[in-house]
């Protein structure tokens, strides 16, 4: 899976949560900017795990302290990229 494939799929997942078109997702936007609340973030993590067959280290109690960076869409794409590389070999 190429980086672009991962980026496209992450954008689709976040767009579905935000209920907007994937073309309106930008890498510098935060989940909150897109109207994705804490529940939406948890659902996004679940969707990412399902889509990429990975385990995401994420604790909703302290989202900022998780190893998985969710500060922006671009950060999420990067984090997924490294998980896919690590966990799928």
């Amino acid at each position: 899976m190429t980086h672009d494939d991962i980026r496209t799929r992450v954008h689709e997942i976040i767009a579905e949560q935000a209920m907007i078109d994937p073309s309106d997702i930008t890498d510098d936007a935060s989940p909150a900017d897109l109207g994705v609340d804490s529940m939406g973030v948890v659902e996004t993590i679940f969707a990412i795990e399902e889509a990429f067959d990975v385990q995401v280290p994420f604790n909703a109690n302290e989202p900022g302290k998780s190893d998985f960076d969710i500060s922006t869409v671009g950060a999420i794409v990067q984090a997924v990229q490294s998980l896919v590389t690590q966990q799928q070999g």
Partner: protein
Amino acid sequence: MRRVVITGAGTINALGGSVADTFEAFREGRCAIGPLDIRDVDRLTIGIGAQVAGYDQAAHFNRQQIALFDRYTQFAILAAREAIGQSGLTFTGDLAARAGVILGTSGGGLNTQDENYRVVYEEGKNRVHPFVVPKLMNNAAAAHLSMEWNLKGPSFTVATACASSNHAIGQAFQFVRSGMADVMVTGGAEAMLCFGGVKAWEGLRVMSRDTCRPFCATRSGMVQGEGAGVFVLEDYEHARARGAEILAEIAGVAMTSDASDIVMPSRQGAERAMIGALRDARLNPEDIGYINAHGTGTAANDKTECAAVAHVFERHADRLAISSTKSMHGHCIGATGAVELLACVMALREGVIAPTANWQELDPECALDVVPNTAREAKITACLSNAFAFGGMNAVLALKTA
């Protein structure tokens, strides 16, 4: 309006199989959280809980009863046996007709559901045991209590997630206070520590992988428990006339709804519930010496609850004690308010405040007297028990010495 007193208490939870055992654990600040011993635990990410260890259903019930009693029903019956036994009441004639049972539960017969879904989906069988429905239904525990003790008055089940027991007890209190019943058996029961029950909570990503540390800067989330707490609520004059031992008085209750978010708590909703309970009980904030907190060990609850207490009690907030016994018996979900009410009874009757176990480090956003790790002697004449549920449904009970 009539006064309402508690004349019997019973429990089974991870800390012990009786009120005396639970009080002893509270005094010792003992934490019952440990590795889960359930089927398919290796497929769970969260492998800990506060389980009723070494529980043998065959030691308490016969084969016919086991065929009908889910684990949560068994817990309810064992707790009721202790509570009603202590009260000394026998329900016959007019008293039976004027006595009922209201229990809280969230999952009901979840073990029965889990086992039978496994049979039809995983094992591919096409036939299930004939009693699956009467075993799993959410009113099964209340129904079996009514049958076992001949309680013929108003009886039903309340389900408000983590506030189920407080809503149930609050409702039973209202029934006795208003004269609709003379005696109500009430509390809650929960047995959610099965594969599906834990897996569902895992999904929410708020569960701790090590232990439950409410109000602590290093807290890592909540830990599930299980069990039951049952109380006998009785009209004060009725109890006095028969010379019953009175454990405490339930002085007031308030219920509020946040009407805002399905999981995030609201400070205002919590405040309105505490203020309402004080008002209903005709207590002033400075009368309260102890609060049994909802205290789940999640960031969302602990910060919101402490802010609400600080706002409601103002300067007195620094003088009262507040502890979360979930640090010891885990979050018993629909039974938790009933198990936690025992800590209130212990504070009022024995002058000992149960601690918040596992506490390590001050969280500036929870800077109240959380009674860290060690139980404390104190003279308490009135206390509150908080429950703030998913769904934004809150219920706070106010108790005082009778």
